[in-house]
């Protein structure tokens, strides 16, 4: 028994060493238990961090929904030069879009990005731009004070938001003629030509 006790009894230094090791190990164990339990408690916080990770790569996520083409593109500036009846009885409109060359359109034609002709009357045309209905009125050109025409500026029918409550930047609802602006297109000289013709007719009639 004494031999056994002497066999298992550590020496004094060894005992101190073993106690120190035991303390260190118990310290590690306590530390791990604390970290593990706190990690469990903060589990929701870990999930909260997920959006933060997403926020570091904003290119992959768009906060706003995509805008439609009509919301991005401003409405075109349309000048209505005239309307004519087509061979099929359908009304046609002669228009210039954004001061480009005149072209003939009919109901259903796309005149600009996201702009479609919805109605053509004898003196006006309506087109839809996104959710807006825009009416363009044909405007009589004013007569020159002299009989001979001179190269002056013409009127442009600035599009007007007609029936919708929402307005488009740069346009005013139901402004009528006050909203018109001049463009670089030449005016037609029909008024002067007609006046000259009538004056010539009068001169014929006044002759004996």
């Amino acid at each position: 028994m004494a031999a056994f006790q002497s066999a298992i009894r550590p020496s004094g230094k060894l005992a101190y060493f073993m106690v120190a090791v035991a303390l260190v190990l118990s310290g590690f164990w306590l530390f791990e238990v604390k970290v593990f339990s706190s990690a469990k408690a903060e589990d929701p916080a870990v999930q909260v961090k997920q959006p933060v990770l997403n926020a570091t790569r904003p290119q992959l996520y768009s906060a706003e929904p995509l805008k439609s083409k009509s919301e991005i593109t401003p409405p075109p500036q349309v000048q209505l030069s005239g309307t004519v009846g087509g061979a099929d009885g359908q009304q046609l409109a002669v228009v210039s879009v954004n001061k480009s060359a005149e072209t003939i359109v009919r109901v259903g034609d796309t005149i600009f990005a996201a702009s479609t002709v919805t109605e053509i009357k004898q003196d006006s045309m309506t087109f839809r731009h996104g959710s807006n209905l825009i009416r363009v009125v044909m405007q009589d050109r004013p007569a020159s004070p002299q009989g001979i025409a001179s190269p002056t500026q013409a009127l442009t029918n600035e599009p007007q938001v007609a029936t919708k409550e929402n307005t488009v930047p740069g346009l005013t609802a139901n402004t009528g003629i006050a909203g018109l602006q001049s463009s670089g297109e030449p005016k037609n000289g029909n008024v002067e030509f007609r006046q000259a013709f009538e004056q010539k007719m009068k001169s014929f009639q006044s002759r004996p």
Partner: protein
Amino acid sequence: MKTSRSLVASLLAFASLLPYAAQSAPSGNTGTYTNVLWVVSTTVPQLARCTELLVDATGDLNNSSRLSVYGNLNCFADNTAYPANGSATIFNNGKFGMNLFLSSGAALQCFNWTGLSGICTVVNTGTNAVLGTATLTLR
């Protein structure tokens, strides 16, 4: 003495010619009516998509009844324009007439209009064959 007589005679002869010279001298002002616009519809198939005749007219209507007319027959649907030139006359019976040659080899013959709108005959300028009619309306 003889010399002075001949000088006086020459002056008298020259003076007698002055009224004729004045008559033949140009008078009045020539002006241009720009961008005269007719809306066109035609039965000619080749020109069916031409909807506008846009011309300038030059003349002196104070001293003449004739105008030189030049411009384009515009066919927007085909993105085409036919150059057109010719003349117009205001007759003393109140009628208006116009003859325009198109670059396509056709001509618009518009006669006996009571105003500035009416119907023209479209003819082939090579064969004089009638191709159809065109209705011109001055807006």
